[in-house]
């Protein structure tokens, strides 16, 4: 497709259930990011992949959060034993470039997100 695709768009789960969120980045994009966005706030970084390698997972809030990108394209964010505080919009973004030195990275292309509600 032309853009970043995320599924499902909405997910409702009961507290304690496991959920899996999928991201299809733009074809050929090397970099893939997951962000969490609380209502009325800006996105907050969760984790970053360069191809299939997870280079930064410093933003994952607990060991209940796990992300993978086994073939360097599609990525899945899994949350185990969900809690009410996990309710948020989860955004995926991809970017074409690797690190470019002092000028940083290319802009990121975002999907429309998955709105997760934990009851």
């Amino acid at each position, binding site marked *: 497709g032309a853009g970043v695709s995320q599924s499902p768009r909405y997910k409702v789960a009961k507290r304690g259930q496991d959920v899996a969120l999928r991201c299809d980045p733009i074809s050929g994009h090397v970099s893939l990011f997951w962000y969490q966005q609380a209502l009325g*706030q800006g996105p*907050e*970084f969760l984790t970053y992949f*360069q191809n299939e390698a997870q280079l930064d997972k410093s933003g994952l809030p607990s060991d209940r959060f796990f992300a993978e990108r086994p073939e360097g394209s599609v990525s899945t964010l899994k949350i185990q034993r969900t809690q009410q505080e996990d309710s948020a919009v989860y955004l995926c973004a991809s970017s074409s470039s690797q*690190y470019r030195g002092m000028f940083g*990275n290319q802009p990121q292309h975002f999907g429309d*997100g998955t709105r997760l509600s934990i009851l």
Partner: protein
Amino acid sequence: SQQGEEDPQALSIQEGENATMNCSYKTSINNLQWYRQNSGRGLVHLILIRSNEREKHSGRLRVTLDTSKKSSSLLITASRAADTASYFCATDASSGTGRRALTFGSGTRLQVQP
């Protein structure tokens, strides 16, 4: 945690007026980017300004960057009802072996009245 603070948090103007949003940040950066988010949608990249640039234009958008004050502003001229959205600044402080992700501010919610 969010690096940027945006001001104002909310802004309501009439169509045709100019809208100015400000962003302050805390650490040294490689570039600063502005994104727009319509309700229920993802973020759309608007403009990127590098750390060695002071001003940049794109259509009705004008961005300034003052690295000595660690601040940036976004000006939207001749606003339209379709400009109604939330606007976020994001800083890129990436390094070769370190962090690559953007750090976002808390956003300015712009309402343009027709």
